[in-house]
């Protein structure tokens, strides 16, 4: 097993820069998730490690060795594709054995490794079937199995769960995580689903427009987002953003206000720009009750109500054109059009510079 490193890795397709100056160390045995919207460069970053794309500049290293010019087959990696890419005319057994056969491994070893991988994934009874006779979930397992038998230094997974139905996805998610912990192989996992990223990754890299937006543990990304993009991308439902204007007294901001909303920063020097955007996660916005550590009340008109069973998400228009998503109780009784008072939990309001969108702190 081995770690992976990107050093100022850049990939251009003609005039388009798909990945720009990515520098990142992935520790041996780590489960790293690359997450971001379409076109953010996450798949390109993965394909550079696989050798399916050539670098335009920079380096990629596996186990300390620069692999820029090493052929995919000699990189000792295994990849799981979004569409599984199983060889349609081969049985599951032949699919699993193909890479080892290409390597000219001894027949006994091939058989043993195929059996072991099949047992690990519970697909022994499928070995003689062809891919078209398998369900989506079974195909997905075979694709994992094909990666597993190679016992590679690095697993690369390109949205492997996106073709599964929601229930199976949740189940397979935890299985992949468990499997990775069990065998301890360095894994780079690409997804556009932030829930997958948060639940699976030891660390998560958020990508945007070919750039690394932030890297950190799931908790770090959630609690200390570097900018508005990460704050909005991580967490479901997304963080609500409200532009506010800052009233300063000398060097320190004394109030942030927008319509009825008025927030007074705690004592201390808060040097803030004139225009700030505040971010509030749904679980930190509540229907107003007296007391507690709530800032407010602000009255707002209900735009929509989403009953989720355990809780109810309420979209409340608080100022012109801005909406606060409020996490309400399951027995929330109001309807769209009603006006309700809401409050925001103190200490849980994120501040962003409205020009640079960078995080400024939390009050």
């Amino acid at each position, binding site marked *: 097993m081995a770690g992976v490193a990107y050093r100022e890795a850049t990939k251009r397709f003609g005039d388009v820069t798909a990945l720009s100056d990515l520098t990142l160390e992935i520790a041996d045995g780590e489960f790293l998730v690359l997450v971001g919207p379409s076109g953010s460069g996450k798949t390109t970053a993965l394909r550079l490690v*696989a050798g399916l794309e050539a670098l335009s500049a920079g380096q990629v290293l596996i186990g300390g060795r620069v692999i820029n010019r090493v052929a995919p*087959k000699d990189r000792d990696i295994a*990849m799981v594709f979004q*569409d599984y890419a199983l*060889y349609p*005319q081969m049985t599951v057994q032949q699919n699993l054995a*193909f*890479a080892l056969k290409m390597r000219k491994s001894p027949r006994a070893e091939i058989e043993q490794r195929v059996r072991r991988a099949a047992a690990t994934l519970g697909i022994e009874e499928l070995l003689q079937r062809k891919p078209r006779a398998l369900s989506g979930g079974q195909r997905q397992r075979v694709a994992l199995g094909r990666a597993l038998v190679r016992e590679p230094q690095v697993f690369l997974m390109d949205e492997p769960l996106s073709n599964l139905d929601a229930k199976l996805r949740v189940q397979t998610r935890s299985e992949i995580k468990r499997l990775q912990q069990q065998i301890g192989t360095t894994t780079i996992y690409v997804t556009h689903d932030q829930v997958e990223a948060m639940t699976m990754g030891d660390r998560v890299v958020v990508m945007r427009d070919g750039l690394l937006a932030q890297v950190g543990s799931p908790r770090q990304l959630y609690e200390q987002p570097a900018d508005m993009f990460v704050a909005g991308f991580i967490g479901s439902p997304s963080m609500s953003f409200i532009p506010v204007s800052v009233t300063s007294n000398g060097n320190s901001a004394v109030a942030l206000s927008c319509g009825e909303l008025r927030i007074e920063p705690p004592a201390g020097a808060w040097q803030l720009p004139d225009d700030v955007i505040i971010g509030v996660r749904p679980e930190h916005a509540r229907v107003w009750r007296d007391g507690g550590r709530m800032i407010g009340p602000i009255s707002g008109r209900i735009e929509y109500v989403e009953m989720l069973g355990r809780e109810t998400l309420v979209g409340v228009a608080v100022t012109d054109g801005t909406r606060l998503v409020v996490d309400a109780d399951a027995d929330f009784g109001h309807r769209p059009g009603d006006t309700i008072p809401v409050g925001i939990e103190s200490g849980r309001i994120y501040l962003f510079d409205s020009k640079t969108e960078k995080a400024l702190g939390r009050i």
Partner: protein
Amino acid sequence: MNTASRAQVALNYTLLILFTFLAVYPIAGVFLASVYPSRTQPTSIAPPSHFDFHNFVTAWTQGHFALYFRSSAIVAVSVVVGSTIISILGGYAFGTMRFRGSKILFYSFILGLIIPTEATIVSLYYDIRALHLIDTWTALILVEVSGEVAFGVFWMRAAFLAAPRSLIEAARIDGASSWRLLWRIMVPFAWPAILTLTVLTFADSWNEFFLPLVLTTSNQHLTAPAGLQLFSGQYTMNTPLVSAGAVIVAVPVIVVFVLLQRQFIRGVLTGAVKG
């Protein structure tokens, strides 16, 4: 499911019956004429008062069709094998590999589809004569292969382009060389398209009339359709006998098509229907 209106269904059937009729009429005419008693004159497309199958035996022996069939089989099989292999290799390169000049090269292949053989036949004749290949199967095979390859490469490129990119990438990561990738992964994937190509090529080569007429000089190397021309010249007045000869010549293509029709249709639909 959509429910089509009665008028639509009626229109569909009318069109289908019309086109079926247009396709079947001449074939049925030739077949029915071939079972009329020899030296009678079939006047309309109607079954004879009694069927006479002797025409086939007479045509086969007097028309030297055994000899022509041998030539046709040798030429058609060689052309199918040769052009299919070249088409697979060319289609694979154009469909899966990125290389300098690939576009220009591909379009020059396509040019072969546009230029008819008739336009090049004179210079072709002199070339073949210069190579001392007049009146040989080799000449027919070489020229026909070069003609078939234009469509074949175009066809196989499309078939290989229909393969998911990830399949190729997975094989590359698994350590398959380009050669192995082609024969172990891509050819099995494109098998229906390859079978379709062989049927089309076989029919094309078997029915080739013009080239054997120009490039062969003896009965020894004449193929069936050109032989049929000679035969019909000899028996102009005997329509049933000439029709029997025509049916004999058509049989191999029909047999090949019937045997492979399922794969043929699957191949034609490759890429048209997902999954």
